[in-house]
């Protein structure tokens, strides 16, 4: 049991109230059931489901995974049975989960996103929606929605119109200026932002002269990307007022604290579950300890508190550049 005496780890993300500030990352944790026999789901906060699309998708050819230094590349390609089958066959099972369930929506057109969100949002088993805007936009020659502030805004507005449920928009780090995209998402009605999705990368098999992933490129996750993610959260926190779910390489309580201090109200844990599925529980316990030891009653007290920079006492002529 987590010792919560004197500390409040709860967070409110939109309308979603959680006893613990932790999400299990989309695509990393199945629907929770896969971990249920050995992890107490009542203690993990929320599971973000694997992203679902309008039509069924087989996903990318194999291989889909490569280990890299302090991280991994994945290129699953949104394998999923499509929204119809999903609603008929899968969603009812989520009712029994003792944690919050966040649906994840993916698409290849604005209409896709709206359609899937609308249908998913009808279901009580789904507590909130996350919009994964990192898919290629078929109409713009494969550019992803997440890379264009206007396209992001369009998707978010369309999805927002379909539901009153809490809407989390998941941003991609593969952009020049993540803060401008965050601002558009907020203005278009997002209740919260998930920061960040995976970083684009590639690995090559030098014996076979071939990409290591069937899809050639993939998404980098794990501790390797943590400094990138912490900065993204820090910059987004300065640009918006809605809460942020920080993610990217969180493996320890200290890692989690970096995200809270950078401005995240909650965190998400993905790849670390592949290192040790007990990590989320350990982090929750140690967060409670950290707060108690410092007499901080609630996590909210540390959110965004690493904002004080340094002064620069010494300058020279060219430093003003």
């Amino acid at each position, binding site marked *: 049991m987590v010792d919560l005496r004197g500390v409040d780890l709860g967070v409110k993300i939109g309308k979603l109230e959680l006893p613990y500030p932790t999400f299990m990352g989309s695509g990393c*944790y199945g629907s929770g059931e*896969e971990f249920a*026999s*050995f*992890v107490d789901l009542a203690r993990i906060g929320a599971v973000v489901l694997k992203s679902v699309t309008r039509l069924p998708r*087989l996903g990318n050819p194999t291989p*889909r*995974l490569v280990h890299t230094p302090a991280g991994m590349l994945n290129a699953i390609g949104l394998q999923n049975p499509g929204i119809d*089958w999903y609603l008929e066959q899968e969603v009812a099972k989520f009712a029994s989960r003792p944690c919050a369930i966040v649906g994840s929506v993916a698409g290849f057109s604005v209409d896709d996103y709206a359609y899937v969100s609308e249908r998913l949002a009808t279901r009580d088993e789904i507590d909130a929606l996350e919009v994964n805007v990192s898919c290629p936009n078929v109409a713009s020659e494969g550019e992803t929605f997440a890379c264009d502030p206007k396209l992001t805004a369009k998707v978010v507005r369309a999805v927002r119109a379909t539901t009153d449920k809490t809407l989390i928009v998941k941003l991609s780090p593969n952009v020049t200026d993540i803060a401008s995209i965050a601002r558009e998402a907020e203005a278009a009605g997002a209740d919260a932002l998930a920061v960040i999705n995976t970083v684009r990368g590639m690995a090559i098999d030098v014996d076979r002269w071939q990409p290591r992933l069937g899809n050639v490129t993939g998404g980098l996750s794990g501790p390797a990307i943590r400094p990138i993610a912490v900065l993204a959260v820090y910059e987004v926190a300065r640009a918006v007022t809605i809460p942020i779910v920080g993610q990217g390489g969180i493996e320890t309580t200290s890692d989690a604290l970096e995200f809270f201090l950078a401005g995240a109200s909650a965190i998400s844990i993905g790849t670390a579950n592949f290192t040790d599925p*007990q990590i989320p529980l350990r982090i929750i316990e140690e967060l409670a300890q950290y707060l108690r030891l410092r007499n901080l009653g609630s996590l909210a007290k540390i959110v965004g508190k690493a904002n004080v920079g340094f002064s620069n006492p010494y300058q020279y002529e060219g430093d003003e550049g």
Partner: protein
Amino acid sequence: MATIATSAAIHHALVLDRQELAPGVVVLGFDAPALVRVTRPGQFVMAIPPSGELAATALGIYEASGNRASVMFFVVGKRTAELAALRAGDHIELTGPLGNGFTLDNVRNVAIVAGGVGIASVLLPAQALTRAGARVRLYYGARTNALLVDHDRFTSEGCELHAATDDGSMGHAGYITDLLSQTNDLPDMILACGPTPMLRVVARIAEERNIAAQLSLEETFACGVGGCWGCVVPLVRTSKQAPSFPPAQRNGSDVVYARVCKEGPVFWAHELRW
């Protein structure tokens, strides 16, 4: 396959013994009665490398009896190196048993084909079958004599041993599948575990000879428990092991990707489209 409800748990297990069967081939025995109780032949565990910095790694359950289970592995990279550094008295953390094992019902005359460390996943089925009175032939191949580890474990269980080494230092000089393809004394079932090229040859032999074959596959894993869809293999959609997927409305293939860690690791050779 023997699809079973998951009974996986995280075990914080005391290491009871450690043997190095050949240079770089380690067996770790540990105290895990709860694991032993529910393990079925062909299942595996995800072992957590002690530093806590690397992904957990899949290892077949080699032995399982009484309070003791064991894993056997080749030291090939960082994770297996960390696990190899464990000693009796240390603890090992592992999640398991995972995956679906071999289907052993009504098997009377079986050829088990193991390549290299593939041997780690076939002791339990060999034991179960010999004890059930089946005839069990073990086709066991490795690079060299010294790496044909623990073959006596199998013969003492009553298995007939057919061995092959790349360098001819024991048995046939060449591939173990050479021996399998040459026999005219056909088994009614083949079980195989080993490198993918070996498994492909086994699948071809099984098809030519019209023998049912169960292959235990290896893929790069992330979660190992069905949560990430990273470890998939193409499977005919009509397979009982195929994951839930709607029939195609148009231009759909008759294949779906199944998770090696969850729907497998054991698949029927004729249902794979790899």
